[in-house]
């Protein structure tokens, strides 16, 4: 039970990753596959951010520990905990995963835009965005290109 509590976030991340991958692999519709890919990519954000969270921490925007806000935060925590894990009297969550995920989100939207643009061109060229129908069109074209026996 305690394992569930300490690893709940990771289990959710796995479920979301599987959902995204399943859409990408099972769907034949190019747009739906891009949506699945976006879901898959976004699950990595949850993954990284989850292990950057620090119990009782706050956002990594440096506070004045003597100020009202800093005092209010410190009051909620065990002083020994703050002394061990805090920085200048305030406990912060880890900023590094945040930076990495900012990058990953931006990469995700770039991929989405290019992928959808290609899908639109596929629709313009083949008249469909379903993989099966695209394959069928390609096969017919290939047969027509064959020289008569």
């Amino acid at each position, binding site marked *: 039970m305690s394992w569930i509590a300490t690893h709940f976030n990771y289990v959710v991340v796995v*479920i979301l*990753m599987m959902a995204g991958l399943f859409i990408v*692999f099972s769907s034949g519709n*190019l747009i*739906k596959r891009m949506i699945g890919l*976006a879901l898959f990519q976004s699950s990595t954000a949850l993954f990284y951010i989850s292990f950057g969270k*620090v*119990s009782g921490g706050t956002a990594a925007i*440096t506070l004045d520990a003597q100020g009202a806000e800093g005092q209010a935060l410190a009051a909620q925590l065990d002083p020994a905990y703050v002394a061990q894990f805090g*920085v200048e009297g305030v406990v912060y969550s880890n900023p590094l995963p945040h930076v990495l995920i900012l990058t990953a989100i931006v990469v995700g939207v770039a991929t989405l835009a290019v992928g959808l643009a290609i899908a639109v061109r596929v629709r313009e060229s083949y008249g469909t965005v379903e993989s099966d129908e695209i394959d069928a069109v390609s096969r017919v074209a290939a047969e027509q290109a064959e020289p008569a026996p």
Partner: protein
Amino acid sequence: MTAPVLEASFALNVALLLMLVVLAAAVVWTRSLLAAILLMSVYSLVSATWLMVMDAPDVAFTEAVVGAGISTIVALGAILLTRGEAVRVSWKRQVVPGLLAGLVGGLLIYAMSGLPDFGDPASPANSHVGRAYLETAKRDIGAPNVVTAVLGSYRGFDTLGETVVILAACIGVALMLGFGPRATLAPPAGAPGDHHVVLRVTAKMLVPLIILFALYVQFHGDLGAGGGFQAGVIAAVAIILHALVFGLRETTAAIPPQAARAVAALGVVVYAGVGIVCIVNGGGFLDYDHLLTPQIEAMIPAGLLGDPDKPHHWGQYFGILAIELGVLMTVSATMITIFYGFAGRTIDAIAAELRR
């Protein structure tokens, strides 16, 4: 060593994550692409909320503007140009993908047991480099927002790469959709009595306000959540709103597609140029401490930004300011280019392309 705040935020964490699972399941089930896109938009908003609970306001902000904002617009544009419903997939063809996803999931679950507990302040991830940033950022960079300090300076090279990725997307979308027969997205011409007058007046008032907000987000980045990415997307949204209400022709008259592409490229030039200037002044690439020569630094009045007694890292300050400007340029221009790309194609354009 208990952390009493954890319980409350942990309940919120669980609730929001369960909502994400439900939304993801709905995306898997639905065949309507419109529904899937809107569900993904909700998913982004919920995950932005979750990110706030995780103390990641910068990421939450980005997820909200990118995931729920621009991604949704692009995806809606794409289904408008393709089709709104996916073909049903027979269960037989779902078995292998299901097994594959299950395999990956199984491996992940096995691996997760090796990860430290959620929220553990002593885990390797939270005690090595991440903690070092918290301790040194004020001294090295001087920006209160440690995320901005890491993003702009410690890992500024990553951010350059990320800006280049955006430029690559701009080039990619422009190559795919930016040429050939174009649509104008004109409002219905000659409509008797303008029915959209409320819309027009509101939009006219909103566009400058949105731009103003973008500028606030841009310059507030080293103090609080925000920065070039978020500001760039917000600024682009103002232009997109203008195009939706007044028509693409009006908007492209004000900001031609070529100009948008040029600004996107110039943004990367600004960013990389800062790096080169640092080299020329005797430092390494993107070493902002060498951005300003001592002569220039001496010319800056001590009280330029508040407290004259507090030592300022002017190189770091101006370096981050300049690269954030580059990011703003590239991101906003790219988002506008992407919107132009999708909005500029219509069924007419498709028909013309098919006849070719």
